[in-house]
């Protein structure tokens, strides 16, 4: 299965990339997606995760075709 991963704001700078495309053979959690994509990087605490533009917990399962996003706490308004 194939998913897209997006990074925003300071996390995009931390990762050094705004997106990754990943292919897996088995089902993964959001946390495992982070580890697969960025194994060598420290995960900044408070990092938020979304699947298809909805907030999710880090143990949520991703499905084929999902868009996963990681980003720091939001600071709009």
């Amino acid at each position: 299965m194939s998913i897209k991963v997006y990074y925003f704001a300071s996390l995009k700078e931390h990762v050094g990339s705004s997106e990754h495309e990943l292919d897996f053979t088995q089902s993964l959690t959001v946390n495992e997606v982070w580890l697969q994509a960025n194994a060598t990087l420290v995960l900044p605490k408070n990092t938020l995760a979304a699947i298809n533009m909805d907030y999710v917990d880090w143990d949520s399962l991703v499905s084929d075709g999902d868009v996963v996003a990681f980003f720091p706490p939001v600071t709009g308004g």
Partner: protein
Amino acid sequence: MAIKIIDHAFDPYYEIQRYQNTQLDHLGAIGATSLFIGTMRDFNQGSQVTGMSLEHYPGMTEKQLELCIEKAKGLWPILDSLIIHRVGTITPNEVIVLIAVWSSHRGDAFDATRYIMEALKSTVPFWKKECLETDAERWVTSNTSG
């Protein structure tokens, strides 16, 4: 109900007038209009700030803003609402966000406006990076409580 993301400076009063003149629902029933306008200050956390860039997550931004409004509608009988938020490069005194809520009674408009503003600040994917007088840049790492 309308949500707009704008990448250039805008006049909130012009936008409100235009919305009221062309799109506003339930006119005769409206007794209360509550507006909140957030503006960029020239200082923050002890530093002079000369500008700001506002990043967002297109698509998720709109989805989460709609969710803010839906939740407010579930809590108070609001008649209509408008949210406009800036993205891109912003200079001090420019408007960052406009929230407008229309209702029959004032308490509902006050409550819903404040609720939407707090929900926006904690859930909608916008990120601010400030430019300081020293030419340094810094990400704003958290919003102040309301």
